[in-house]
């Protein structure tokens, strides 16, 4: 069950979702989460059948990029137009140091070259020539040195500066930015060269609202220099192992702090006592820190706190009675702690809670009785707990629940009817081996379901008949091995499906491809569909993540419907089935390992019908 392990990893990203409030991102279902994550970015979904006409402006910009050699300078253009040309060159990876020269003195406002190849000091002269027009610069991952950074001194209007993992910047370079007092946002993630002394340069940046020093290893002792930055609202020092409790003393007076991220650092309960005065703090992330429940004393003084992440802190029940005092909490993450039902008693009064994560805690059925009064709960994560069928009766009153994760619990088919009244549910994860067709039959009232994860459940072809109740389903995973082509017939009629994972069903044949492909033809113009058949889930975890992102990109660009990734490995698919894939014009990745399929045939398909296929196996 490689997929099982791969899913556990994405639990650490919770803090990224916190600011968006409760959403499906808290769901355990990896694929569903990626979908939501990737779709949460601004994206225009266009009407099917209507081509998106490029504007004349876009056409002209494309043309200029194409003929870029013919232009010596863009200074005669209004700055917003040269900005668009610049952005397009960056986006299409056409910008070189030679072409950059054409943008000298163009009054550009944004120079976003983060992770752009080849950026070095020789580029900085033109960048700094934008002068006081320049508002934001991102040179993350570049080879720019202190000298190059120094050239930005003249750009006194700069509001945002991002130099993440720039290895050639040292504390000497930092001195150059001390005069940029209009800066509101500064990011130096993973910059080993930033030292406590170097942070002295930050002390004059009085307008700074956001400071990101994630993964910096040398900043211990430097916080004394940011003491006076009274406008600071957001501080990220995640994974800064060097930070100690005394560093927190230095930031104890930053009264405007709303967001403080300190996960995976060596902070202890004592350090947190310095933060008691941060009355505006809304979000505190302590995941993976060396704190105990003793820190709740200090935390309960944070009257505005709504988001608290104490995941992976090794908490035990001792001292958990203090949870009852943090009534402002809306989102609480207690995943991967050694807490038991005895701790849940103290969550009873947290009636503002909208999201509660108890993943892998030692809780069981009796503990859930304490959640019955949390009527605002929208998201509840109970994966890998000892919760069983009898505990589910305590959840039947939580009618606002939208996301419920019961994967790897002891819940059986007989308990699932207790969930039938939770009609607000949008995402349900029942990835557990003991769940079968009978369990699915008890859920047909949940017609609002958008994501249903039955990854390891033993669903057979018969069970797929119940799926027709879930007309809104966008993602579905059934990978228990019990499906045949006959079951796929039922699945192909789900009108809203965007992601389908049918991996590990060894009996699926070419017929399934035909059905799926037919579905594409059928729904091609009316829906968005991605099929991800994945067997090697562990190794493909990040790949899938990237692919779903790519999918969003394709949808945004190509219109709709685009099968981007197809993995039917370890099935009875043969070379004869490949022609069915021809309508899947947007397919970028195809994996048919352990099938009777040859690399040569896939290559043929690639050159004749699948122009976007960039990765395939066997190769």
């Amino acid at each position, binding site marked *: 069950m490689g997929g099982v392990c791969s899913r556990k990893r994405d639990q650490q990203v919770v803090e990224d979702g916190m600011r968006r409030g409760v959403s499906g991102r808290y769901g355990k279902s990896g694929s569903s989460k990626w979908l939501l994550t990737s779709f949460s970015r601004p994206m225009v979904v266009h009407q099917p059948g209507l081509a998106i006409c490029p504007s004349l*402006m876009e056409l002209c910009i494309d*043309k200029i990029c194409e003929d870029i050699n013919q232009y010596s300078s863009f200074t005669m253009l209004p700055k*917003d137009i040269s900005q668009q040309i610049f952005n397009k060159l960056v986006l299409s990876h056409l910008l070189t140091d030679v072409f950059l020269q054409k943008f000298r003195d163009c009054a550009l406002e944004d120079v976003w070259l983060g992770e752009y190849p080849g950026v070095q000091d020789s580029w900085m002269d033109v960048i700094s020539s934008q002068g006081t027009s320049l508002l934001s610069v991102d040179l993350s991952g570049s080879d720019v040195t202190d000298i190059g950074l120094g050239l930005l001194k003249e750009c006194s209007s700069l509001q945002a500066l991002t130099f993440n993992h720039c290895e050639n910047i040292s504390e000497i370079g930092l001195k150059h930015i001390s005069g940029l007092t209009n800066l509101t946002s500064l990011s130096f993630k993973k910059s080993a060269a930033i030292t406590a002394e170097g942070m002295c340069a930050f002390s004059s940046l009085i307008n700074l609202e956001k400071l990101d020093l994630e993964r910096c290893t040398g900043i211990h002792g430097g916080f004394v220099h940011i003491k006076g930055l009274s406008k600071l609202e957001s501080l990220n020092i995640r994974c800064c192992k060097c930070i100690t409790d005394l560093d927190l003393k230095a930031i104890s007076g930053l009264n405007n702090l709303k967001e403080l991220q300190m996960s995976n650092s060596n902070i202890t309960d004592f350090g947190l006592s310095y933060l008691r005065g941060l009355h505006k703090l809304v979000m505190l992330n302590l995941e993976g820190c060396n704190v105990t429940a003793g820190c709740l004393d200090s935390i309960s003084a944070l009257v505005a706190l709504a988001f608290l992440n104490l995941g992976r802190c090794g908490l035990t029940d001792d001292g958990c009675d203090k949870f009852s005092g943090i009534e402002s909490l809306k989102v609480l993450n207690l995943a991967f702690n050694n807490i038991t039902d005895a701790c849940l008693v103290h969550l009873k009064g947290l009636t503002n809670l909208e999201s509660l994560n108890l993943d892998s805690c030692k809780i069981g059925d009796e503990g859930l009785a304490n959640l019955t009064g949390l009527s605002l709960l929208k998201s509840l994560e109970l994966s890998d707990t000892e919760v069983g069928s009898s505990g589910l009766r305590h959840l039947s009153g939580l009618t606002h629940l939208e996301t419920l994760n019961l994967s790897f619990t002891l819940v059986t088919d007989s308990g699932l009817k207790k969930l039938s009244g939770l009609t607000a549910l949008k995402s349900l994860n029942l990835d557990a081996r003991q769940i079968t067709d009978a369990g699915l039959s008890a859920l047909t009232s949940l017609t609002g379901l958008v994501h249903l994860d039955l990854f390891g459940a033993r669903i057979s072809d018969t069970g797929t008949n119940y799926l027709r109740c879930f007309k809104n389903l966008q993602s579905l995973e059934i990978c228990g091995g019990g499906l045949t082509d006959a079951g796929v017939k039922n699945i192909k009629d789900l009108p809203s499906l965007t992601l389908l994972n049918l991996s590990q069903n060894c009996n699926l044949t070419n017929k399934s491809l035909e059905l799926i492909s037919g579905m594409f033809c059928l729904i091609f113009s009316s829906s968005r569909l991605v099929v991800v058949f994945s067997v090697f889930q562990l190794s493909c975890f990040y790949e899938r993540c990237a692919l779903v992102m790519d999918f969003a990109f394709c949808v945004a660009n190509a219109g709709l419907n685009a099968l981007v990734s197809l993995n039917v490995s370890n099935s009875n698919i043969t070379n004869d089935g490949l022609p069915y894939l021809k309508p899947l014009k947007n397919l970028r990745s195809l994996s048919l390992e352990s099938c009777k399929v040859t690399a040569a045939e896939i290559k043929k398909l690639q050159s004749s019908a699948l122009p976007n296929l960039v990765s395939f196996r066997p190769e």
Partner: protein
Amino acid sequence: MKKEDTVKLISAEGMEFVIDKEAAMVSQTIRNMLTSPGGFAEAEHGEVTFPEISAVILEKICQYFYWSLQYSRGKETEFHIEPELTLELMMAANYLHT
């Protein structure tokens, strides 16, 4: 073609282009001029003068309007732009929100 279905676009030199209103409305700027209530004289007379846009550019823009209509109806052809016109055309496109 009925007069009320057309609109006259006049270039800097005074060259007149009579085109379908539907085509002209591809431009957000022209659309606003022709549709804002009780405002522009343009709306009344169905005429818009562009003292900053030369005839050769305005002609190209009219071509684009019709190309755009076809494109959105599924005829996805390429729109050719002469390199020597690009900059001027782009300035006009910027003005016309096109």
